[in-house]
């Protein structure tokens, strides 16, 4: 009897090995390769000891800064996906519109000196302009380009979204010029604040605080208000929500308003960190933030925040920690490589993300 039982357990094992095709071999090689680079690189870097503790802290803080910007953008992706099941490919460009419109006010304020004399007022003004612009553009995009595809399945909505992305980029390029413009760099933003014995530039603190406050506000709106509840209902099941008397159109517009506003704030933050704006600036952060949204579990608001922060930190610490250790020259050029690899690994191996299991199960 025991022999039969042993056979029974043995046979499936063998057959599962037989089903182990070359595709699995390559997928496992991919997994092992990435882990090997991460582990090997980390060990190598730590043995080399090229970076001091202060530098690691700098990387980390910068990662949190840029990560919170990604989180703000990722929120727009995740909310729109939740409600419409659409990748709003143009969301990165909506961020760009915010950054660009903020630029004109910011440079005006920098000329008149308001940015130095009344920094809080000036920053609020810049944010207001950016948020207004990007919100208006997000709502217009929804109305003109996405609404006709509300009930179309397949490629059409995504291709339309790609078209919108190009249209926005090129419109801004044509109207405002193709050159890179320098964002103003007031002295108070360069000031260094001491924090637990480490020094942090003011602008990074500013960005993190702005992002955290806006995310908190957003979270409260989504969780506590009537409209937020309606939004969550639509993203659970749009048809049932409509039957319960929720105006789906209104909810969709509201979602785009929230996403656009977050993108506007993100645009100004991004521009103040990197000190430049140009028409194509929204593309790469947009794609990365989409990765962050998927990483956190698309459709989940806290997931997008976590995913963004995680992506920012990995991207900032990664080149030094993983790539320097295995002897790759100029690892900072490969920052985008790390972000894109993370994006692809998530899409391949964990498309439902960290917090998205519940939703994935429901949809399966």
């Amino acid at each position: 009897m025991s022999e039969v039982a042993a056979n029974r357990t043995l046979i499936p094992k063998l057959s599962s090995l037989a089903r182990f095709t070359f595709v699995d071999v390559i997928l496992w090689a991919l997994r092992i390769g990435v882990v090997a680079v991460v582990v090997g690189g980390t060990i190598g870097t730590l043995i080399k000891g090229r970076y001091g503790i202060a530098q690691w802290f700098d990387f980390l803080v910068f990662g949190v800064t840029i990560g919170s910007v990604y989180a703000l953008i990722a929120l727009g992706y995740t909310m729109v996906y939740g409600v419409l099941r659409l990748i709003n490919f143009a969301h990165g460009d909506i961020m760009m519109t915010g950054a660009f419109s903020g630029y004109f006010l910011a440079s005006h304020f920098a000329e008149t000196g308001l940015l130095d004399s009344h920094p809080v007022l000036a920053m609020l003004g810049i944010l207001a302009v950016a948020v207004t612009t990007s919100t208006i553009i997000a709502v217009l995009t929804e109305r003109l380009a996405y609404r006709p595809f509300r009930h179309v399945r397949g490629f059409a909505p995504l291709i339309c979204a790609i078209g919108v992305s190009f249209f926005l980029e090129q419109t801004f390029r044509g109207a405002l010029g193709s050159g890179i413009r320098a964002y103003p760099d007031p002295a108070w933003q360069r000031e260094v604040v001491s924090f637990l014995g480490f020094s942090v530039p003011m602008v990074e603190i500013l960005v993190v605080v702005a992002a955290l406050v806006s995310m908190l506000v957003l979270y409260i709106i989504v969780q506590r208000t009537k409209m937020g509840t309606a939004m969550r209902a639509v993203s659970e099941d749009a048809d049932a929500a409509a039957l319960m008397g929720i105006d789906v159109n209104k909810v969709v517009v509201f979602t785009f308003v929230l996403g656009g506003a977050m993108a506007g704030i993100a645009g100004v933050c991004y521009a103040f960190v990197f000190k430049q704006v140009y028409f194509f600036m929204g593309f790469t952060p947009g794609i990365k933030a989409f990765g962050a949204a998927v990483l956190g579990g698309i459709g989940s608001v806290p997931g997008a925040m976590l995913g963004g922060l995680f992506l920012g930190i990995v991207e900032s610490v990664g080149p030094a920690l993983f790539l320097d250790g295995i002897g790759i020259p100029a690892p900072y050029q490969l920052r985008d490589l790390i972000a894109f690899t993370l994006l692809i690994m998530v899409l391949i191996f964990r498309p439902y993300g960290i917090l998205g299991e519940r939703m994935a199960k429901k949809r399966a």
Partner: protein
Amino acid sequence: MTMAGAATSAKRRSRRRERSPLRHAVTLGLIFGTLAVYLAIVGILPMIDARWIIVDVVSLGDATLIAIGLGAGIATARATKPQRLPPLFLHALVAGAIAGGLMALLAIAMQLFDLRVVFIALSAALFETLTFGLGLPLGAIILVGAGALLAVLGAALSLSPPTIRKPVLIGLAFVVFFGVFQELIQIMMQFNDAIGSLREALYTWEGLTPEGAGAIFLATAIGTFLWTKSLRARVGERVARFTPAQHSYAKATRIILAVLLLVLFPVIAGSYIGQVMMLVGLYILMGMGLNLEVGLAGLLDLGFVAFFAVGAYTTALLTADSPHALAAYTMLPSLSYWAAMPLAVMASVIVGVLFGIPVLGVRGDYLAVATMGLGEIVRVIVQSDAAAPLLAGAQGILQIPKPSIGGYELSDPVQLFYLTLVASAVAAYFAWRLENSRLGRAWMAVRDDEDVAQALGINLVKCKLLAYGLGAAFAGLAGSIFAVMLTSIYPTSFQLLISINVLALIIVGGMASLPGVIVGAVALVGLPELLREFGEYRYLFYGAALIIMMRIKPEGLWPSATRRRELRADAGELVADDADEIAGAPAPEASSPGR
């Protein structure tokens, strides 16, 4: 359509019917006016204003504004269709006046504020053009009046019988064509003396003369009139009486004529046209490759440029006379182009399969983003210093020799065009055979429903990897020709924009349709290349084309036969429901691919 959707769209439809014609006219006026203002702000209007259609009389910019004015009138006439004429003309008048009024507002705003600080295109020269050089109050009034007048003209044109409307529109189109492409046409017309003297009659060196334009208009308009009046019916009768043998003979003649035209055209038209046609040929090659992936197999691939890059880099590494070539530091000999090209294609196929394996399980929208990420990874690696010892980094690989046949070097763009033409013809044959093969049908099954296809015994892994590999082969061939065309390659040539470009052309042309690829490549690559100043706005045009195509003609300009049949079947079902919706809503055939 879900219940909620049905309910809202029904509501919207009834609201559309209730809307008064006057309100409709106002809306249309606002739309057309916004379009004109948009063109001005983005800088297209000032740019195309520099190109004359008729020298010193009408520029392309003027023509565009005139077309917008006429369009407002035509759209109003089409949309409202009242029984009596006076209210219709009133509505058209309102629409045109509003469209002109928006332009006038732009002019006023330019006068009052210094908009140039923000919008770089709003120059003083544009202000001059907008106000006809007459300054503000008068210029603005003329704008409004001209808009109203044009719209009334447009409405009248739209209501006139087709025997008049068609010749007028076709005549105008020909004048615009001969005016806009005057440089190229003039070069071609220098071919021999008889045509040369015709050129002198129609053109000065800057463009069409007013007399020339008039002659072209009259000739084409009268020609069209005669054709529609009598000739078409007679020719149709003759064709209808053809025997099957005669039909196939006629078809063969047409194909031979087309091939002859393709072969001889660049010789007549000069090397610039040759270069443009060659570029179009390269995009046709890539389009056919992506068509296998997107059109047939339904795998939306935004990293397609990676295969193009692999083809180009393999060719460069194998043939170039540079320190980065493989021959410089390995035992490999420096190959000739003809030996390197198959290897480049092979390398692309391998990369295509490797590219496909990780994303096998990813579907739909995620697949698009994943492939885009893969494409970007390839670009980042090629551009980085880390890979510079192998791939030369940002400096690029220089001195790639041109291909030669028996000691005769193919150096002229026209000669390289023939290389592209042959490659495209071979590739088109393969694509055509693939489409109707067992594999092609399997791809279409996977496209329409992956799970059902698998249940029917189609090996998904094999099927998808073949799509990636074969699609990549086309792109690799294109990349290999691209490398010898430029004789040097840089990582900046392999941007994501190329992937989007190829995607846009197969969507505009029609997915899964070979002639569609050609139409798309000519429209999206050839035209912007010919209108050189337009090149800057090419991607704006692409973005708009993607959105508009998806909204009004998701099956493309030249859909494949299967797609057309499906569409007809769908349309037949929908007629009973609401004829109005068919034009507006992308019919279900758009939803069949993917997922």
